[in-house]
C-alpha cells in the first residue's frame, strides 16, 4: 500500500497506539497494585519523597484474604453468576424462538412486533426502575434473585432476538424446505436444522448477554437489600465502605476479583463477543 517513512510511522502509529494502550489499561494496573499493597504504603502523602506509587516492594495478599474471609464476597460472586446464567438462558430461549418467528414466519403484525421489540431494546433501565421496584414489591419478589432473573431479560431478550433474527436471515430457506420435503415438521426443522446451524450466533448472543447481566447495577441496587443476597457490583459499592471510610485495598481487591470471571469468559470467546457487539448495533 502506501509507503511511509520510519519517523512518520512512529508519530502517526506507534506513539498514539501506545498512548491508547497505556490509557486503557492503566486503571486495571492501578486496581491490581492497590490490591496487593500494604495499608502502610497506601496512605502515604502524595508528596512524600520516598513515595513510589507504581510498584511495591512488599506485596501482600491481606486485602484479598480479608475480602474472602470477612465479607460476603464469595456469595456475591455466586449470586451474580447464578443470576447472570439463568437470565441469559431465559433470554436465549425467548430470543431463539422469537427471532425465528420474526425472521421466517409470515403472520399479521410481524412488522409491528419486530419494531416494538427493537424499541424496547432502546428503553434504558433507568427510565423504569422506580415503577418496576413497586411492581417487584407487589409480586413479592423483592430481595430474591428472581427479581433480577425476571427483569434482566427485559434488556437481554430484545438484543438476543434482534441478533438471532439477523443470523437466521442469513441461513438459506432451502435447507429448511429440503427437511420439510423429507417429512420434518416446521417445528422439527427449526429445532433440528436451523438451531444447530445458528450455534455461533447463539454463542455470541449468550456471551454478550452474560456480560451485560454481570455488569447490571441499578436493578440490583434497588431490588436487593440483604447483604448476603447482593450481586458483586452492588455488594462492593454498598458493603465494603463502612461509614465514610474507604478501605481502598479491599475495595480494589473486590473490583479486581469481581472483574476476573467476566474477563475470563470474554477472553475465551473474544471473537464471539465482538460479533455480538457489532451485531448488537447492526441487527
Amino acid at each position, binding site marked *: 500500500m502506501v509507503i511511509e517513512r520510519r519517523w512518520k510511522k512512529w508519530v502517526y502509529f506507534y506513539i498514539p497506539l501506545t498512548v491508547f494502550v497505556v490509557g*486503557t489499561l492503566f486503571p486495571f494496573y492501578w486496581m491490581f497494585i492497590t490490591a496487593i499493597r500494604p495499608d502502610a504504603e497506601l496512605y502515604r502523602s502524595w508528596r512524600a519523597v520516598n513515595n513510589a506509587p507504581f510498584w511495591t516492594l512488599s506485596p501482600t495478599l491481606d486485602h484479598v484474604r480479608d475480602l474472602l474471609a470477612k465479607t460476603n464476597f464469595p456469595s456475591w460472586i455466586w449470586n451474580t453468576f447464578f443470576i447472570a446464567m439463568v437470565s441469559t438462558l431465559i433470554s436465549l*430461549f425467548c430470543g431463539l424462538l422469537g427471532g425465528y418467528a420474526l425472521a421466517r414466519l409470515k403472520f399479521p403484525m410481524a412488522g409491528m412486533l419486530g419494531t416494538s421489540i427493537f424499541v424496547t431494546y432502546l428503553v*434504558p433501565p*433507568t*427510565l423504569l426502575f422506580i415503577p418496576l421496584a413497586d411492581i417487584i414489591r407487589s409480586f413479592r419478589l423483592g430481595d430474591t434473585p428472581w427479581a433480577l432473573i425476571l427483569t434482566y431479560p427485559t434488556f437481554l431478550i430484545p438484543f438476543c432476538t434482534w441478533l438471532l433474527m439477523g443470523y437466521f436471515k442469513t441461513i438459506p430457506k432451502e435447507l429448511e424446505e429440503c427437511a420439510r420435503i423429507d417429512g420434518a415438521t416446521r417445528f422439527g426443522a427449526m429445532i433440528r436444522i436451523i438451531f444447530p446451524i445458528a450455534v455461533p450466533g447463539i454463542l455470541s448472543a449468550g456471551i454478550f448477554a452474560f456480560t451485560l447481566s454481570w455488569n447490571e447495577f441499578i436493578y440490583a441496587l434497588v431490588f436487593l437489600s440483604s447483604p448476603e443476597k447482593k450481586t458483586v*457490583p452492588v455488594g462492593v459499592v454498598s458493603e465494603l465502605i463502612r461509614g465514610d471510610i*474507604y478501605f481502598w485495598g479491599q475495595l480494589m481487591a473486590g*473490583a479486581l476479583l469481581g472483574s476476573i470471571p*467476566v474477563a475470563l469468559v470474554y477472553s475465551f470467546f473474544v471473537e464471539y463477543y465482538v460479533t455480538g457487539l457489532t451485531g448488537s448495533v447492526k441487527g
Partner: protein
Amino acid sequence: MRKAIAGGSARVEVLAPPRAVRHQRPGGFLENERLLAAMLLTPTVVLLGLFIAYPFVMGVWLALSNTSVGNVGEFVGLRNFQKAWNDSIFQTAFWNTCWYTAWATVFKLTLGMWLALLLNRSFRGKRVVRASMLLPFIVPTVLSTFAWRWMFDPTFSVLNWLLFRGGFITTKLPFLSDGAYGMWCAIAVNTWRGMPFFAITLLAGLQTINPDLHEAASLDGANGWHRFWNVTWPLLKPVTLVVVVFSIIQTFSDFQLIYVLTGGGPANSTHLIATYAYQVGVATGLLGEGAAISLFMLPVLFVVVWLQLRYLRRLEAT
C-alpha cells in the same frame, strides 16, 4: 384457520410418504404459521409486557400521583412535573445530563474513530491489543469507576502525583471535590469506558471497505486526510450513526458512573437525571416525584429512537 390446516396437510400428503404423515400427526397444528408464530413469541411478549410495558404505564401513573413508599397516592395531575421543572437541583441535573452526553459522545467518537483507524492496520500482536482494548467495556462499570475514584482521591490521587512530579501543577487539583472538575472527570471516565465500543464497531465497519479504493485514491494523489474524508468517512457513516445513537441513549440515561464517582455531589452539582430520580424516588421514597423526574428523559430518548427508526426504514427501502 381450519382451512389452512386442511390445505397444509393435504399438500404434505401428496409430497411425503405415508409413514411420515403418521409421524407428523401430533405436531400437525404447528404447521399453521400463525399459530406457530404466536406460540414462539408468547414467552417474549409476556416477559416484555410484564416488565416493560406494564412498568411504563405504571410509571406514568406514579408520575401523576403523590405516591410515596408505604403510602398509596392519589391523582395530582402534572404537579410533580411542575415541581421538578422549578427545582434548581433538577435544572442542574438536566443540563448536566445534556452537557455530559454531548461531550462524552464527541470524545468517544473522535477517539474511537482514531483507535479504529490505528487498529485497522496490520502489526504484530494486533489480536491481543484489540482484545485488551475492549476490557473497559467488559468489566463492570461500577468496579472500574471505583478504580477511577481512587485515582481521583482528594489526598492520595496518583494523577495529582504524576502532574506534580511532571511539574504541571504546584497544588493538588480538586478532581471530585469541585462540581465543574467533577463533571469533566465523569466525562473522562465515560469516554474511557465507552470508547472501545466505538472503536470495535467502527473497526468492523472499516474492515468491510475495499482496500482498492484507498489504493486508487492514493494513486490519484490523495493524502491520508483526504482519503479519510472522501473514501473512509462516507462509507462509514451508516455504522457511525447507529453507534452514536446507541451511545447517546446509554450516556443520557447513565446512572452507575455518577452514583459511584461523585454520588451527585458536591452539593448536588454533578447529578444526572437518573441519579437525581434515584435520590428522590428511592433514597427519599417519593415514588411519584422520582418517576416524574425519570420521565423527563423520555422526550429526548423518543426523538433519538424515532430518528433511528426512520433511518433504519430508509436503509431497508434502498
